[in-house]
């Protein structure tokens, strides 16, 4: 026996397809209540009617999508259709309003904690590698760092790890407790990578939504970093593009104040391949161009313009290519 339901009714159906019991939603049927119901169902919960049937009978299967396969499921009547249409719009508006609640702060938490995880990971990872290198003296500690850590995590002793990595057996082995600590430390490094990935996924989802245009220009992770450096989307949108260009260049800016030449780009723009992988003499030009576009993109996102699509982005990319190919040789110093 199974229970099928939608927002209007719930049915208990036996294996022959017969309706054993049926409850309709009858009290307080209003649009706001329907919105509440739809929100509940969207979270994968049962409708109140389905719950009653569920508690009334033992040994039943609950099929949230079961009604779709039931040819006898009643169609919407005109009132139900009208109510449903109205509720869908109300509900979506509600969700839109909710989703914009202080995204600056939420992204700041995510990006800052992701940075913390990354720096912990960097420390632990190099500690693990050096530690393993103490015992496995012949492996290359610069290439295959990931493989070294994974092998330790998978092994039960240092010598089986050596086998796994196809390297010579260690001359000295760690004691049992020492090995356990080493292994745990490697597990920590792996765990941190996974957590970093999880954080980045969350950042991507929020940023794509909050700054769609800037995300399509420089990628959601970079967009979120600029946002956090600027303090808020509002600030980033109001910032002159020259300041945006050098976001993340604290040290160079400090030096500039003391008389050094100004930085050409901050760390975020530099991490873009179009800037960082270009010849050094065009980096500043490309960075300035992208900063200008990024500034416009942020304004579109912040002040509610229509986000850019693939067309606009590929136009910008080809303009960047043009800038780069215009200066194939370093300038001659005068």
């Amino acid at each position, binding site marked *: 026996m199974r229970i099928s339901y939608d927002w209007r009714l719930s049915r208990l159906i036996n294996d022959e397809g017969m309706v054993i019991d049926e409850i309709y939603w009858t009290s307080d049927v209003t649009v706001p209540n329907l919105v509440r119901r739809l929100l509940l169902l*969207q979270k994968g919960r049962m409708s109140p009617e389905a719950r009653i049937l569920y508690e009334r009978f033992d040994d039943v299967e609950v099929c949230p*999508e079961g*009604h*779709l396969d039931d040819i006898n499921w009643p169609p919407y009547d005109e009132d139900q259709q009208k109510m449903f249409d109205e509720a*869908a719009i109300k509900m979506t508006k509600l969700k839109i309003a909710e*989703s914009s609640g202080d995204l600056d702060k939420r992204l700041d938490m995510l990006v800052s904690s992701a940075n913390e995880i990354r720096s912990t990971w960097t420390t632990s990872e190099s500690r693990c590698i050096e530690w393993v290198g103490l015992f496995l003296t012949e492996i290359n500690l610069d290439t295959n760092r990931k493989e070294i850590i994974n092998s330790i995590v998978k092994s039960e002793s240092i010598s089986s790890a050596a086998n796994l990595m196809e390297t010579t057996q260690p001359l000295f082995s760690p004691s049992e407790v020492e090995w356990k600590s080493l292994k745990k430390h490697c597990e920590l490094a792996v765990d941190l990578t996974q957590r970093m990935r999880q954080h980045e996924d969350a950042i991507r989802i929020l940023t794509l*939504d909050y700054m*769609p245009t800037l995300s399509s220009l420089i990628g959601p992770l970079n967009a979120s970093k600029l946002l956090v450096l600027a303090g808020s989307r509002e600030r980033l949108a109001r910032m002159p593009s020259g300041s945006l260009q050098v976001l993340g260049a604290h040290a160079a800016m400090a030096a500039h104040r003391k008389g050094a030449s100004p930085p050409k780009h901050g760390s975020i723009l530099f991490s873009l391949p179009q800037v960082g992988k270009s010849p050094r003499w065009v980096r500043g030009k490309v960075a300035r161009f992208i900063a200008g576009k990024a500034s416009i993109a942020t304004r579109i*996102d912040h002040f509610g313009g229509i986000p850019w699509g693939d067309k606009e982005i590929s136009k910008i990319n080809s303009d960047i290519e043009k800038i780069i190919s215009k200066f194939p040789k370093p300038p001659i110093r005068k």
Partner: protein
Amino acid sequence: MKRKIISLGWGVRKEGRNIWTRNAVKGISVRKERRKKDGKNEWRIWDPTKSKIAASLLRTKFDPAKIIPQPGNDCLYLGSSTGGTVSHIHDCVCGSGNHHKGQIIAVDISSRMMRELVKLSEIRPGIVPVLADARDIAQISPFIYKKVDWIHQDLSISDQAKTFVKIAESFLKNNGIGLLSLKGASERAADGSLEIKFEKAEEILMNSNLNVIEKIDLKGLEEQHVLFYCKMKCID
């Protein structure tokens, strides 16, 4: 000289290389597209460089009229964005004031996009805006009480094909039309070149309850895009 007009079904026609839909909301464009009068009707041009469905209508080797839904159909549109394509589907499935009594459940995960879509659905009855993650069936099923006639999925995510199969197997009628737009670049680079990617997707579709009728290459209109034109198998 007057160009030949070919009807592609109710409210959709092809004139030379252009496709037009009969505007359900006279006097208003959705994406600043061109409009023109024809007697008491008004038509809106459907730009094939901005809509993968319009592009497919021009590129298919089969009868393009079979790709678009019929008036009064129930449709599910995943990745509706701000509703450009949705509005043209609405022109033919619902028509002015939804006199065909059709329905388009339009799903997108982005609240920014949904803001525009809600505005559209308020002037175009029959469009149901749903802010949800298309990868999660439970977030969509409360809005669907019976299986639909037509599905289009156009999501900027990896694993598009898998999601599409899951969605179609849950929500698409026997013999219903399922269209999957696939973009080369949005999937991870590690998955290999464009071709391999499209082949992988095709394989996933082949191993499902869908029949792939045609893999439509949209080159020249939507670069690096293909649209898989599928039909749900009859299963009882």
